[in-house]
């Protein structure tokens, strides 16, 4: 097995609504979508954002777009109007997700 950062296999963009964040995760190559589906689970994403108070993660699967949409609740610590964080929108958090290590099953 070999482990790579998700950044090698996929790209992402974050969007906010209140205290809720969505992260669109898109596979660079169509054939990697099943691997991402296996590795990037709701539970792992929730664990990744636990230190920011995330309470729930819902993953929407979009195989036709080679993509997933993760909706993460209560992760923005008040959101753009309430957070003490420099990035109250959570716009940088797409790259927190892309830092997640994933097992490629190869090599």
């Amino acid at each position: 097995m070999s482990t790579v950062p998700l950044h090698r296999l996929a790209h992402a963009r974050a969007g906010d609504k209140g205290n809720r964040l969505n992260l669109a995760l898109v596979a660079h190559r169509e054939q990697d979508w099943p691997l991402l589906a296996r590795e990037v689970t709701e539970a792992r994403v929730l664990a990744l954002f636990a230190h920011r108070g995330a309470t729930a993660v819902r993953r929407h699967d979009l195989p036709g777009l080679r993509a997933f949409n993760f909706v993460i609740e209560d992760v923005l610590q008040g959101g753009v109007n309430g957070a003490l964080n420099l990035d109250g929108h959570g716009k940088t958090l797409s790259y927190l997700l892309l830092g997640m290590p994933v097992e490629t099953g190869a090599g």
Partner: protein
Amino acid sequence: MPLGSDPTALLRIGCGSGFSGDRLDAPGPVADALIAAGGPAALMLEVLGERTLALAQRERRQKPEAGYEPALLELLSPILQRCVAAGIPIVTNGGAANPRAAAHAVLGLARQLGLTGLRIGVVEGDDIRGTDALDDLDPWEGDAGAVLEPDRVIAANVYLGAAPIAEALRQGAEVVITGRCSDPALALGPMLAHFGWDEADWDRLAAGTMAGHLLECGSQVTGGYFADPGIKDIPDDALGMATLGFPIAEIGADGAVLITKPAGTGGRVDRRSVTEQLLYELHDPGAYLTPDVVMDITGVTITEEAPDRVRLHGARGRARPERLKATVSLPGGWLGEGEISYAGPNARARAELAGRTLLERLRLLGLDGKSRLDLIGVVSVFGGDDKDDGFASVDAEVPQDIRLRLAFASDSRAAAERAAREVLSLYCCGPAGGGGVRTRVTDRIRTLSFLVPRGRLAPRVTLLSLEDAA
């Protein structure tokens, strides 16, 4: 060619601004491309954020002729004559809290430019402050339990749909100015006016809404907010991010959608840039709620037809929601911030010492509020608020260039100002070698979302010209 004169003809919709802080020179190349293409076209300018609208409402209360997007005339003046001459209507939500005042300002610009016959459509009715609609609001799911105190409300605006924009265009408006409406409606309105789609033609409305959603953030679909060197490259040359082309959608009468950008501009339109924007700020991709339609993009496919030309198929629509979303803005206290840099040997230890010193100062002064410390360069934006020692949580390596930031939220302006000043005081009272202090105190606004029944609203369309203004 005027909208609607040949409803079978392809409609081009350009977007010259994707948010209230966007590049002021972006609309020009889009207008030029629409004019060169020659067919029916419209140009949208999206400039209205939730916070922007609340600030505009405050401004209007102090100055009745203010309260619209401050950059509106600067955005319009280079393109207005060209667009009017070519029959390309401009649709913008730059009316913010005062669309009528914005229209009078644009008429003033028109007079200067010799466009004495300009017709402006004003869309009102989104502002529900002081109306009985405020009595009939239910909290939106994300704000369950929110309680509204009507006398504290700064702004209360409902997201209107595309119908009033289409109505203004049908009445001959050459510029349409709205307050709050859904961003995709700025594109869907011209489509309704041109194609005459039935208001219950859900799949076409969904296709048009998808096009509007792809356009609404401007360059975010054409290679902006996208570049990641070595992974997703945007050329670092004359066709790079300094000259990003803003998007143009080509819409067919059957709801076909193609996204492109003006020739000779920077950036790129490809599967990846389009996919990122398609999912931007979406929650359930099977049910994206807008005032005009519930959009389902789970079956959408993306095809790269040619360089910078991407086609999307398969948006589906369902009946529009019975209730509309309203954003209510309330005072949100104050935020004091201060930053100071430490670099070189032992930088992190000096920065941490400075941070501990600040927390102790806030405690000794008895300032009432909530604080957080960032070690920018070690951990800042990824970190949570709640680590016991006051620093943002997440452990990291030890770099040599660190910026400490204090953020302090309080209901007291004086407390926020004092907290920020404490960072400045570190020049003399903090560890050795600190420099580059920045401080800032921001008046904050809290927003809540509610749902309001359609029957409570009365969107209005008024056409204004210089004769009315005289």
